[in-house]
């Protein structure tokens, strides 16, 4: 079928999502909970786009294309909501995300530096029980990518979402750490994490000891 992205007509297979169509057309749509190796989840609401004829912007990752659909990735309302959402996300973290993370990249796209929201932030909670997989719970934004990577890529089912509302987070096994779970230490979770809430020990140590890329180079 034919769809139009930012005025450009492209042909897509039935079942293609608006996000896939936008990317195929070469348009940039920011995302946080999306990973093209995983099924779309629809949680972060950052991939909002305008759809002609629709009453409100749509989350492009979970919106299937329809014949002759007109997608506007620069829709003003969609951008405003997505930007406000990213600012909310930044406000729940006790520290800004590391420069190289996807979240930092998306925040730069929306020009968000210091979030204007004051209020409760995640409490620092470092889990270093595993030899090299480290969880920094305070950096978790509940995008579910680690859980889905564990389930969908590795089939290890070692991770879960916990709590609800603002208290939502992640954990391994029976909140027993990676080592006491069905984790097979594949690192898929750390690989997909957009905030370094899960990372590999050595890298974290490097970051914490202040050894930057420049010095290594």
């Amino acid at each position, binding site marked *: 079928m034919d769809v139009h992205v930012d005025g450009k007509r492209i042909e897509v297979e039935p079942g293609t999502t608006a996000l896939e169509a936008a990317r195929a057309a070469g348009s940039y749509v920011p995302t*946080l909970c999306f990973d093209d190796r*995983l*099924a*779309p*989840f*629809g*949680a*972060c*609401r*950052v991939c*909002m786009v305008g759809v002609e004829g629709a009453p*409100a*912007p749509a*989350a492009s990752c*979970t919106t*299937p294309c329809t014949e002759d659909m007109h997608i506007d990735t620069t829709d003003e*309302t969609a951008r*405003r*909501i*997505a930007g*406000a*959402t990213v600012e*909310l*996300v930044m*406000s*729940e973290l006790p520290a800004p995300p590391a420069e190289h993370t996807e979240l930092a990249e998306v925040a730069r796209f929306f020009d968000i530096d210091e979030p*204007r*929201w*004051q*209020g*409760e932030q995640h409490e620092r909670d470092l889990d270093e029980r595993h030899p090299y997989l480290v969880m920094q719970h305070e950096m978790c*934004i*509940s995008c*579910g990518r680690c*859980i*889905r990577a564990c*389930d*969908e890529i590795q*089939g290890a*089912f*070692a*991770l*879960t*979402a*916990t*709590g*609800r*509302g*603002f*208290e*939502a987070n992640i*954990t*391994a*096994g*029976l*909140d*027993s750490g990676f080592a006491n*779970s*069905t984790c097979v230490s594949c690192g898929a979770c750390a690989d997909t994490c957009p905030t370094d809430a899960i990372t590999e020990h050595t890298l974290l140590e490097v970051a914490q000891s202040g050894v930057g890329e420049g010095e290594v180079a």
Partner: protein
Amino acid sequence: MATVSHNLTQILTGEEEAAPPTALDVLKQAVEERGVLTDEDRRRAAELSGLPEAAVYGVSSFYDDLQQPRGKRHVSVCTGTACWASDFGAHVDDARSRFGLELGQRSDDGEVSLGETVCLGFCHTAAAVRDGGLVDAGPGSVERAVIGSDREAPEPEAGSMLDEPVLTTTGTYAGLHRALASGDAEALLAEVKAANVRGRGGAGFPAGLKWEFARKASGADKAIVVNGDEGDPGSYIDKYLMEQQPELLIEGMALAGFAVGARRGFVFVRSEYPRSMPILREAVEAARRDGHLGENIDGSGFSFDIDVAEGAGSYVVGEETALLNSLMGLRGTVNARPPFPAERGWHGKPTVVNNVETLCNIPYIATHGAEPYAGLSPDGTPGTKLICLNDRFQRPGVYEVRFGTPMEEICNEVGGGLVDEREIKAVQIGGPLGGILPVTRLEARFDFDDLAEEGCMVGHGSILAFDDRTDIRALARHLLAFGAHESCGKCFPCRIGLQRGLEMVERPGEIDRDRLEVLLETLELGSLCAHGGGMPAPIRSLIAHFPDELGVSA
């Protein structure tokens, strides 16, 4: 079905007969029996349900009913909006001081624990207190709970403004047997579509269309799931129907099954209504005995049977995809749609999820047809609607009214005005996601379109009066505290935004109107479901009608 992951739901979906119990069932039972949850309980839940251990941990951290430790006696005070509107939370403070416990705390000797429940459905006689399986309500309920002499609260008055009630009358199963005798499921579906039955659970989606999607969906095994998770604080309509008119509901379910081609039904009842599940189970048993349910009903070739399941304390589970997750024993979080349940719902099967009252309308249509149904409300949406009034009214209770009845008539004639010679300041209609109508706008008619013009909605049909003592800023705080507590935590705008909204109104001083507007828009347009999407509605009403009392900047 990306609730947690495709693979996780596959584990469950693969089970043709979803061997009971679910993980949630096992966990609930452990808390009820011993007041605590151990890793041993979680491992056993994993083993019996087939869920991975981590997923079971996730379930155990989600639901209010699984929060523990609990004492030998577990007492919960109602923190719903009707109880709040009655004494602005004085009963909660009273319980904390008399028990000497904070909410969520257990006494050192393990004898008693104190918790909160958002709406026990005794809004006609606040304040409500639950002690184990017993709900006491009305003046003195906290005192009685403290000394252990609590008594069963009186059930609400019920009545109809129609000469021949449709919803406040005992069901006869005549519509079901008539439909089965005709043998024409397509004709029944066409009649329900023609009747334009709008869903009574909040969204107002036409039931006939939902049925048609499910009928056309591929797959021989389909399900009818009743949303009896009436979590809207201030609403006790579905409670009334499930407990007082279960025959109407059972008949409506069987008719839905016949029209759609489903042979099994589930009623998902909220656990905050301890009487509903046993009453429904008894009514289902009676219906089987009397030949209204079971194999080959009336020799028609149509078979249908019903299971009754109970929730575990979560408002968002009233959203249909979250409800199906909960019914399968998973975390009650919302899934993005499509796929819609009509295509892929309970264990991946085409599933109709209908509200209790919606289905209670069907027997009338099956018996009398779409035209008389439309005639019930000559100036409004077809059919009738149950409303319920909180205890600020002189005559609180459940009433059947015609669509289009002026709000003024509902408040002053049906409800008889307020008690204690108080004046109405405003009414919230349809639940916590419904707008708030100030007393100056009571000429508005009670119907979908009319209320939408006022920034309000029919919603669940509750009409909750706030009297002239009500502090508007405190009301905003009450509503947003509920919203933040009940967010399922999946989509970012709702998960973080409702917390930030609560903080904005909690912080002393003027509220920055521009910031609040940004937040409300982000919630409305960005949220995944109606919880985050709907919470701004009452706040917008307060901004529009009570800006000074709310304390927003100009």
